[in-house]
């Protein structure tokens, strides 16, 4: 089928995955509050509050399956009519796989938590679907209006999810911080968009790119615009010094939300960042490259050093996720095809390993918000051997140990950096990775090597079936792409083709 953007109806086909997600989200919302649903659960046992909500979770998974099928179908369509608002390219479709994977894993690991914490299941799962739809809008955008709309659809849903546990004051406070700083960063992003519009006369990314390379854009407006857009995106990907919200929000948000948003929100922001900067601002690479160089360097060094002293495992993983932002920023600073493919590959692996690690943290904390200190992991490995091995795999992969997906991801980021002659950044990446071994392996050391003072403190850990499935799939995929990376990387490489002409790598060595 060909999608012709001069015909309005064809936008429906181009946006089929998003539309399916939105519709199923609304269906879940309505089912969750409908009288019949509540009545059935009242009859099944006790109050409304005691309903498990599992069936709504499965309904959400069904919606995600539908969106995945639509996404697979979009591979077979061809696009005519160039500068439209929506891109139907492989870059978007690959990113959609990441978001769908993250949402599926996020829902699978949240069943027990939603039940234990007595969260409103209908709203919870519907908001995850809406946020996923927003991410997809963001990465499929060829126009800054759609980038902005997608960003906000995603962000507003995630603010709500962060503050979702109304009985927990940490959750409310994390939500407030995320909301204030997120809205603040949106202001910067929007002002950047306004100035880009003033400089080039368009909000379409491709048209902006042409206007800049033809020299029609006014540089006086463009330089502040690029700076403001960088600030806006840097907030969303939580690069230092715009990371203040990250540890608090990751600690305060309900655990499954943290697991999911630390992977998916970051991936969406990075993919949109990449498209806007590589397609739109390709011709002024020399202008933004030093900013990103410094952002990447400061983020890698700062986050890894702060992570060394954390005692709360959720905060440690938050700083580790900031450190991974630094590694990924290297790919944007490199701005070539290898780096872009490496970034997609890394985001995929990062989603798996980070969500896996958070899932085990959740089960150790008994699907609530207790036992979150690294010292609580003493003896964990020997009393729960399988979970211990899984957590070790996730931690080794986050650290970038050979044989895991995280290692291959870092190798491809380094290859991309080398292609643009970013030698100093590559050295920083390797050195900070070595530093990061300390805090990842410390957890592994505590759980395998340290003798527990009291027996049986890990006996109450339960891993429900959906979470077991999610963990098994994550471990399997991490080891698979770590040992046989070529298939996934080839997939990422073909997804980059046709994105735009990359002029990256014209300087090198440092700003």
């Amino acid at each position: 089928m060909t999608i012709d953007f001069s015909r309005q109806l064809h936008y429906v086909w181009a946006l089929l995955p998003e539309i399916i997600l939105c519709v199923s989200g609304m269906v879940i919302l309505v089912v969750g509050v409908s009288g019949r649903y509540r009545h059935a659960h009242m009859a099944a046992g006790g109050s409304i509050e005691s309903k498990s909500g599992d069936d709504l979770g499965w309904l959400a998974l069904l919606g995600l399956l539908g969106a995945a099928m639509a996404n697979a179908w979009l591979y077979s369509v061809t696009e005519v009519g160039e500068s439209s608002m929506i891109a139907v390219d492989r870059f978007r479709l690959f990113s959609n796989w990441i978001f769908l994977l993250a949402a599926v894993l996020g829902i699978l690991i949240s069943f027990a938590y939603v039940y234990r914490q007595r969260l409103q299941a209908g709203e919870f799962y519907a908001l995850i679907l809406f946020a996923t739809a927003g991410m997809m809008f963001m990465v499929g955008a060829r126009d800054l209006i759609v980038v902005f709309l997608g960003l906000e659809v995603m962000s507003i849903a995630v603010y709500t999810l962060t503050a979702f546990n109304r009985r927990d004051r940490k959750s409310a406070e994390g939500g407030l911080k995320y909301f204030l700083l997120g809205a603040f960063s949106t202001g910067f992003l929007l002002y950047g968009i306004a100035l880009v519009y003033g400089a080039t006369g368009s909000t379409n990314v491709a048209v902006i790119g042409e206007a800049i390379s033809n020299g029609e854009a006014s540089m006086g407006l463009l330089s502040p615009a690029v700076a403001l857009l960088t600030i806006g995106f840097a907030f969303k990907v939580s690069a230092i010094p715009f990371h203040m919200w990250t540890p608090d929000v990751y600690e305060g948000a309900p655990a499954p939300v943290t697991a999911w948003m630390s992977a998916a929100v970051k991936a969406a922001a990075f993919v949109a960042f990449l498209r806007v900067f590589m397609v739109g601002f390709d011709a002024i690479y020399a202008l933004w490259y030093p900013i990103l160089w410094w952002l990447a360097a400061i983020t890698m060094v700062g986050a890894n050093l702060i992570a060394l002293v954390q005692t709360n495992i959720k905060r440690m993983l938050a700083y580790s996720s900031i450190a991974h932002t630094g590694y990924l920023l290297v790919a944007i600073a490199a701005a070539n095809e290898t780096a872009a493919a490496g970034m997609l590959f890394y985001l995929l692996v990062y989603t798996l390993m980070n969500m896996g690690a958070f899932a085990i943290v959740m089960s150790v904390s008994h699907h609530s918000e207790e036992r979150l200190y690294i010292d609580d992991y003493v003896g964990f490995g020997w009393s729960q051997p399988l979970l211990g091995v899984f957590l070790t795999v996730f931690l080794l992969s986050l650290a970038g140990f050979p044989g895991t997906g995280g290692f291959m991801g870092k190798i491809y980021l380094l290859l991309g950096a080398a292609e643009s002659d970013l030698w100093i950044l590559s050295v920083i990446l390797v050195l900070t990775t070595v530093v990061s071994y300390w805090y990842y392996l410390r957890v592994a050391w505590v759980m395998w090597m340290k003798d527990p003072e009291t027996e049986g403190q890990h006996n109450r850990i339960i891993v429900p079936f959906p979470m077991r499935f999610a963990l098994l799939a994550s471990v399997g995929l991490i080891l698979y792409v770590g040992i046989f990376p070529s298939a996934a990387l080839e997939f990422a490489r073909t997804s980059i083709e046709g994105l735009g002409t990359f002029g990256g790598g014209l300087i090198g060595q440092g700003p």
Partner: protein
Amino acid sequence: MINEALVLSSLLFVLGTFGVLVRRNAIIMFLCIELQLNAVNLAFIAFSRLMGIDGQVFVFFVMTVAAAEAAVGLAIIISVFRHYETVNVDNFKLLRW
């Protein structure tokens, strides 16, 4: 004409940014963020005198999103107030700001 509008818009934006950084009351901070968004709207309208209709269309999207954000934001502020009986961001001790 466009220069005056742009100067006013950048002044409003700086004022909003400054307000968010200096004030500690969550509602005032939120008001300052709205000021930033209105500065953006002014810039869009000023530019669209030269560049065509796109900027004015964008303003409608910004206003809609700002309304949605206000709904969610005020709800979050209320839920914080229920726990702390204050909306001053310096008073939150559980998590470091």
